[in-house]
C-alpha cells in the first residue's frame, strides 16, 4: 500500500524534473516546479503514515500507550511546505506574466538575454 505512495512521489518528482528540462514553455516550467513540490509533499505525508492509525487528535486524558495514530509532525511539515510551494508558484507565475510583457513570448529559447 505504502509503496505505491513512495513510487508515486518518486514519479512526481522525476516528472517535475523532466518537465523543467524538456518543456520550452515557462508555464510548463512552473508546472514542473509545482509537481516536484507535490511529489515531496506526498513523500513526507507517506513517511508519517501508519497503516490503520487514527487522526492525531486527542485531549491529554485520552492519550495512552495503546493509542495508535499517524505521526502529526509530517502533516505539519507538509502544510508548511504546501504554503511555501504556493508562494513560490505565485511568484513564478507573476514573473512569467512580466516576462511575457517584456519579451513578448514565454518560450525559453527566446528568453536568454543573459548568457555566456
Amino acid at each position: 500500500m505504502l509503496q505505491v505512495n513512495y513510487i508515486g512521489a518518486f514519479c512526481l518528482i522525476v516528472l517535475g524534473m523532466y518537465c523543467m528540462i524538456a518543456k520550452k514553455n515557462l508555464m510548463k516550467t512552473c508546472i514542473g516546479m509545482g509537481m516536484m513540490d507535490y511529489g515531496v509533499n506526498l513523500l513526507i505525508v507517506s513517511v508519517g503514515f501508519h497503516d490503520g492509525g487514527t487522526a492525531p487528535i486527542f485531549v491529554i486524558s485520552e492519550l495512552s500507550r495503546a493509542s495508535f495514530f499517524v505521526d502529526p509532525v509530517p502533516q505539519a511539515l507538509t502544510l508548511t511546505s504546501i504554503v511555501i510551494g504556493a508562494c513560490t508558484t505565485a511568484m513564478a507565475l507573476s514573473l512569467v506574466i512580466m516576462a511575457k510583457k517584456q519579451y513578448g513570448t514565454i518560450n525559453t529559447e527566446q528568453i536568454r538575454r543573459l548568457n555566456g
Partner: protein
Amino acid sequence: MKLKKKSIIVKCAADLFLPLASIFGIYVVMHGNTSPGGGFQGGVLIASALLLFFLAYGGKKMKSTFHEGFLHSTESLAEVVYIVVALIGVFAGFNFCLNFIVFPQFQIETAMVMNDAVGYHVMAGVICLLIVMLTTLNSDDEDVEEGSDQKCCK
C-alpha cells in the same frame, strides 16, 4: 474559459453560501489553537469566499467592495501583533512564543491571539493576491465583453 454575464442562479447561490463560507473560515481561525486547522487554513477559507463573490458580482464590484489598500496595510499590522504578542514571553521572563493565559476569565491565551493574527494576515494577503490576479487577468476581457454585449443589445 470566458464567463458570460452573471446569472441570477450564481448570484443567489453566492448570497446563500458567502456567509456560510466566511463563518466556517472564522470558526476555523478562532478554534485554531485547540483543534485541527488554524490561522492559515481559516484565513484561506475566508479568502476563498472572495472567489464566490467574484463569480457572482464580477471584478468591478469586487474591487469596490473590498478595499485593497486597507487590507494591504493592515496585513502587516497582524504580523506586528503576532511578534509583539510572542515577545511578551521574553519580557515576562519566559521564552519567546510562550503560550500562557492572558485573561483567565475569558480563557484567552497568547496562542489564540497569535492564531487570530495569522488568520487575519493570511486572509488579507490572499484576498489582495486574488484581487490583483483577477483584475490583471480579467480586466481587459471584461471591458471588451461588456462593450460587445452593449453592441448586441443596441
